[in-house]
């Protein structure tokens, strides 16, 4: 099981801010994105061949090559626009 968080435009489009996600390991971020894209609809629009999707694992920015392990907190969000 992992926890997935969605922020900003993604959160609004998916109508979901977080979920507990059962999965098998080992799992890369890319593989997770592919699984989410298979849900279809907005999930497919956002996460199939994702562009402008930033990812953090356990609150650290990382890349799509990162490996996710059990209990991790994975967050997907668009490029940041604070300040």
């Amino acid at each position, binding site marked *: 099981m992992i926890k997935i*968080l969605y*922020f*900003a*435009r993604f*959160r*609004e489009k998916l109508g979901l801010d977080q979920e507990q996600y059962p999965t098998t390991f080992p799992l890369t971020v890319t593989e997770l994105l592919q699984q989410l894209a298979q849900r279809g609809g907005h999930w497919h629009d956002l996460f199939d061949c994702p562009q*402008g999707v930033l990812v*953090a694992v356990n*609150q*650290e*920015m990382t890349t799509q090559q990162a490996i996710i392990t059990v209990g991790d*907190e994975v*967050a997907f*969000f*668009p*490029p*940041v*626009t*604070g*300040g």
Partner: protein
Amino acid sequence: MISIQQEDFDLAHELQQLRKSCNQMGAFVSFVGLVRDYATQGQVTAIELEYYPAMTYKSLVRIVQQAELRWPLLGLRVIHRIGYLPAHAQIVLVAVASQHRHSAFAACEFIMDYLKTEAPFWKKEYINGQNYWVEAKATDTQALAKWQN
């Protein structure tokens, strides 16, 4: 030293606190960012700032630490507001104190450049009753280049 808050801030008060912490300060540089009241889609009446509580603070700490490694700083204050903010409201404060001006200017701009591209905040603009997520600007990413050589 780093705060993420809904409440407004008072630059004069923050600088006064910063001064108290050390007597050797000679140079203070501060940046204040305000909510601009226009966008390509029209007049902006307000913005809303979303953040990632568990990560945003960590991210600001890391940016500040990088600045402290690069320049000899004597004091530092970062405040970023979140939530609903009307046009012309203050959004962000970065204040840096050092002995000499160059370090203070450089560190303040460095922190702002990294904050704009790495700290998880997202801005939504309210325009004519509609709202729009602000798109990231390529110029913000380009601004990092000057710190990376």
